[in-house]
């Protein structure tokens, strides 16, 4: 597996405060990489180091195997969480300016801007000033500016904040399309539902330390609890629950069913097969519902953060 970005033991201190403590992360190319962590964990500092806004105290970052250098900026597109545009500048002029700062020629920038403005249906804004646009509208312009120079690596810090659901979806689709075209995306957020939907790799940073990273499916496998949700129809729910609780770890569950009167979460021994549970249950009652409980990224997040 190719990696586009490697961070090797990156450490950053602000005075006595440690923002990043020897963080090592590998971002596979072509992936959507979720950088997760509670507020103040050090995500933004890490992203700023990748963008060469600040320098690490120790450790190094490699892009495509090369230690980070100023010219790498052209290969990175960064949408910061703290974002804005020049208020009194016209949309088109501003987009052209920012694109040229990223090394595009004026003609090139104009052509690509036209493509993107048409694509996101904002062609008529070219001569408007930013101060005339709503926040969501301005965010669309920012998104375009971020991706315009076709960077290999895109970094989005909370990209969906400030978008209404329709536009958030639009942006999400664009992000997925960019990935399909070969870009790698680092995605920093603490909104887990978007991580679940988009990311195939994650790293979890907590209190300046990396506490978890890897493929989402692998992480979920290690975090599975061998717990199953079952829905049973029986005439004696109380006695059945009593019997079950002697054999397994049982807790009440809630989900939607039509006529089940006993809903339970049942945890089995790590190495036993769920088939045994199924055959035992079917001998006792009518089973309408049997689902493995897969930990959500949210659960893993909360579990890991509160554990450490």
């Amino acid at each position, binding site marked *: 597996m190719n990696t586009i970005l490697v961070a090797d033991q990156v450490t950053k201190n*602000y005075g006595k405060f440690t923002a990043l403590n020897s963080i090592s992360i590998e971002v596979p190319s072509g992936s959507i990489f979720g950088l997760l962590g509670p507020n103040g964990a050090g995500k933004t500092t890490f992203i700023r180091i990748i963008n060469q*806004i600040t320098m690490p105290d120790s450790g190094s970052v490699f892009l495509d195997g090369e230690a980070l250098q100023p010219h790498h900026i052209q290969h990175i597109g960064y949408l910061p969480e*703290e*974002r*804005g545009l*020049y*208020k009194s500048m016209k949309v088109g002029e501003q987009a052209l300016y920012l694109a*040229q700062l990223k090394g595009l020629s004026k003609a090139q920038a104009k052509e690509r801007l036209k493509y993107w403005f048409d694509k996101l249906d904002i062609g008529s804004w070219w001569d408007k000033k930013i101060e005339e646009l709503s926040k969501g509208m301005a965010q669309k312009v920012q998104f375009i500016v971020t991706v315009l120079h076709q960077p290999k690596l895109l970094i989005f810090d909370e990209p969906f904040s400030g978008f209404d659901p329709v536009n958030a979806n639009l942006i999400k689709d664009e992000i997925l399309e960019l990935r399909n075209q070969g870009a790698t995306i680092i995605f920093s957020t603490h909104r887990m539902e978007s991580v679940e939907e988009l990311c195939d790799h994650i790293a979890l940073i907590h209190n300046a330390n990396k506490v978890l990273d890897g493929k989402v499916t692998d992480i979920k496998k290690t975090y599975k609890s061998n717990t199953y949700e079952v829905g049973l129809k029986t005439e004696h729910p109380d006695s059945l629950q009593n019997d079950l609780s002697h054999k397994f770890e049982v807790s009440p569950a809630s989900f939607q069913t039509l006529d089940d009167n006993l809903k339970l979460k049942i945890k089995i021994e790590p190495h036993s097969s769920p088939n045994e549970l199924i055959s035992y249950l079917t001998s006792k009652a009518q089973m309408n519902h049997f689902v493995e409980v897969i930990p959500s990224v949210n659960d893993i997040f909360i579990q890991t953060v509160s554990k450490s």
Partner: protein
Amino acid sequence: MQNLRLIIKREFNSRVRNKSFIVMTILSPLIVVGMIFLVVFLSGLNSEEVRTVAVLDETQLFSDSFEDSENLKFKQLTDIELVTAKTISETSDYHGLLYIPQTEDLSQLDKNIQFFVEGSPNVSTIQSIERTLNTSLTNIKLENDGVDLLKIETSKTNVDIKIENYQGEQTSKMSSWIKAIFGGAAGYLLMMFIIIYGNMVMRSVIEEKTNRIIEIIISSVKPYHLMMGKIIGTSLAGVTQFLIWVVLGGILMLIATSVFGLNLEPSTMPNQEMIDQANASGMQAVLYDIARLPIGTLIISFLIFFIGGYFLYSSIYAAIGAAVDNETDTQQFMFPIIIPLMLAMYVGFFAVIENPHGSVAVIFSHIPLTSPIVMLMRIPFGVPWWEILISMLLLFATFALVVWFAAKIYRVGILMYGKKPTYKELYKWLKY
């Protein structure tokens, strides 16, 4: 370099297209020219007013001394009591009543003369009367002592030393003054320019923070380029505005003078003696002096020091802008800018004009913060080229250093959103 050009262009355009910039560019010359005309008009009104002063001279000694002038008329009252004179003066709406009482002893007279007036008297009127009385009384006393006034008049002398340097070139006494005026005007212009346009640089540096675009910009360009671009771009906008002011102001003045037919030259120069002296030593010599000033060096070094000085102060303004989040936080940092500027002006006006090559003047013309103004004032007096060169190098090196410093602060300052920095913190940031 490409980015620097882009930044300069953007900064220039965003300043020049700003509505308030356009309004101020057009309005300022109008306001200034309007003010000048108002002042001229009002002082014209003022000087047209004619004051009449009643004189009650019981000694009869000064009856011929008071001569009517354009603005001041005298009305002699004779053979009446002081009380009556007062009533006359009051009811006739005279400016005042001058009362010279009868005395036996002339030496006591100077303390006993009175002036009665409604409210407070016009200062120049009183001065004029006092002058007249002084001259007349002195002459009367001299005559009483048997001195021939004619002899005194003929023996008055006015020594006029001809100044010539060892090469045999003649100069006038005005020479030093001309040089001081040239230098002073240049220094003053620079100070005005710094104060007016320095703030613009500072605001432009804060702009990225208030617009929250800072991270996008800083991840695309080097802070040093950003600072440099802002300083140059804003300066160019300032120069543009200044040139427009000069041209527009000149045109307006021309139009206004021809339309209203106002004579802008003051009718009476306050310092008549200076003009007499100038005439005496000859306008020619003065012109010769001006022509003999090192015009070439003067213009070139004026430009270089002007640009250097302006850039240096702009970079300090930029550093302040880099350290704060919004304009209200800038107040505490204004002090260090104003102090050296004031100091330079004082050194310029007191040390340089008194002794252009004294150690105070020399030292301050090398310290980068004061050198632009002090050196500009010294140059007309003739400064060796190597001194100018050293001073220039120091100036531009400091400028580059301060820009670097500002860029450093700017980069670190991003991480400190919403926190008011202290000097101590600024020092800490430098070490990051």
